[in-house]
């Protein structure tokens, strides 16, 4: 899906409070907040960016259900159906004894699927290219990326707003 190149404005802040203030201001002024980058999570930015509550718990649920049913079924099938053996006089279907493994598999599947869900939805994978917006994003810089919504606002206007909030640096970028 090819997108038309869009111009975005990038502002680099020194801490999350100034960024948050700038973002709120921009939102108020009808500027689209495209993305924010930070060295640690900024609390309060989610509604501004319009991030809905995550669906990752569903991945967890699916993983957990899968782990539970698969392991329980497999234990029953292998112990009571496929190759039943008399182990210490216990019944072939020793359900209580199957619980620990079932539980561990539930956790394992749920955990792995959650992380897989996170990596997939966030498109994180080895070899993924990062855009070098600012190499200090992972250190002490907070970057806000905004995009004009209407033509009335110029690049300069946005930068002014950002500067008003104490932006350390700002520039424009063409994004594909």
């Amino acid at each position, binding site marked *: 899906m090819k997108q038309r190149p869009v111009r975005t404005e990038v502002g680099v802040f020194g*801490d999350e409070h100034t960024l948050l203030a700038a973002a709120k201001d921009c939102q108020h002024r009808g500027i689209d907040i495209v*993305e*924010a*980058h*930070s*060295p*640690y*999570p*900024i609390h309060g*930015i*989610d509604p501004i*960016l319009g*991030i809905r509550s*995550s669906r*990752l*718990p569903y991945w*967890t649920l699916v993983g957990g259900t899968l782990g539970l049913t698969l392991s329980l079924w*497999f*234990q029953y099938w*292998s*112990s009571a159906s*496929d*190759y039943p053996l008399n*182990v*210490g006089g*216990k019944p072939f279907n*020793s359900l209580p*004894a*199957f619980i*620990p*493994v079932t*539980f*561990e*598999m539930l*956790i*394992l599947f749920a*955990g*792995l699927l*959650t*992380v897989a*869900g*996170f990596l997939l*939805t*966030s*498109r*994180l*994978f*080895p*070899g*993924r*290219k*990062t*855009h070098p*917006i600012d*190499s*200090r*994003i*992972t*250190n*002490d810089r907070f970057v806000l990326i905004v995009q004009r919504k209407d033509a009335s606002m110029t690049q300069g206007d946005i930068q002014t707003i950002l500067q008003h909030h104490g932006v350390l640096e700002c520039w424009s970028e063409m994004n594909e």
Partner: protein
Amino acid sequence: MSIIQTSTLKPPLILGRKTPTQVTSDVCTVPEKGPGRLWLPAFLLALSALLLGIVAVTYQIKVGIGTWGLNRTVGWAFDITNFVFWVGIGHAGTLISAVLLLLRQKWRTSINRSAEAMTIFAVMCAGVFPLIHMGRPWLCFWVFPYPNTRGSLWVNFRSPLLWDVFAIGTYFTISLVFWYLGMIPDVATLRDRAKGFRRKLYSLFSLGWNGSARTWSRYEVTCLLLAALATPLVVSVHSVVSSDFATAVVPGWHTTLFPPYFVVGAVFSGFAMVLTLMIIARKVMNFEDYITQRHISAMCKVVVFTGSVVGGAYATELFIAWYSGSPYEQFAFNNRISGPYAWAYAIMVGCNVVAPQLLWIRKVRETIALVFIISILVNVGMWFERFVIIVASLHRDFLPSSWTSYAPTLVEIATFVGSFGLFFTLFLLFCRFLPMISMNEVKTVLKPHEATESFGKDTLK
């Protein structure tokens, strides 16, 4: 777990009025520029211990389990003692990163990374023992249920040892994933500071992390979910480990108390180990500002609390043995206390129940040297707890004709030392090459008001 009192006079979590920039440079110094002078000798010491262990294990696998001091009555001793000991050590890491995360204890941030690393290395050390304690370790893959040509002979899902395989496997996997997940942003920090090959390497492992708000948002949810999964997991793992004993018929093993008793004991020993490691690490790595007296005090409180619970468990065990009316049980505990292994029992009670009580005293908590000694004692005591449970129960069971005693051989001692070698080698490598403190998390608690505020808010809830 209301260990932290609600007080506005709390000192800040991180001392020295650090800025994020300082945090980054402080933490990244070691991976980038190399550690202090003490690192290399420590590493060589650990490595030689590891090599000793490798020699011992190689010899044992080549010649036979007979090179251990076991006999027809005592079929497990050092091997499973070490296994349970190391699994227990591991538990603090998960607890700090998962339970304290769920409880929003912010003080965990500067120690959770190394605690989690400790978990993983401890579980690795632990995992070695069930493997090498097998008579035919080269067939260890038989414990996995895979389709085979033996008419598809599966495994025995009724065996606690098999539960162990799954529990330890899951625990290791989830801990590793959790640890790695927590490290992705910090590896990205290293990546962005590095050049050349190191950059490429860090790029590979940082999975293209760019610190975007959306990612952070999902990341936090993932961490919470994993924490929510890891918490029951950590409880289940040691419960399963305790089932190795609790489901057996051996008097002294056959106890329903074991799961909670083991879990608390694990947390107890784990926190003691974290204390030991942190006290050394803050000194060696110059992290006094990050791992502060407040951290140590908080951990001391956990230790004294869990230590007391463990003491309660010891008492309960004795009571139930008496109350059960089963002569075998009663004998097993009498024998534990005043039989041939009474000395081990004395060490166990002395180190686990008596010694930590000193931590009720603030002065003691604030004397790092004393805390260090107590943490070592607890480690020793917890090792002996497992030794007492395993050997003192096994050596005299039902039929007096089979009663024997046990003494370790050189090979066993070397293997034990080797497990410490493995642990410290890995831990020192971790300290050397990876960010030892979770930068992204510490950066959120730099400001004193934030820390106290959130404490007040969270604990009051």
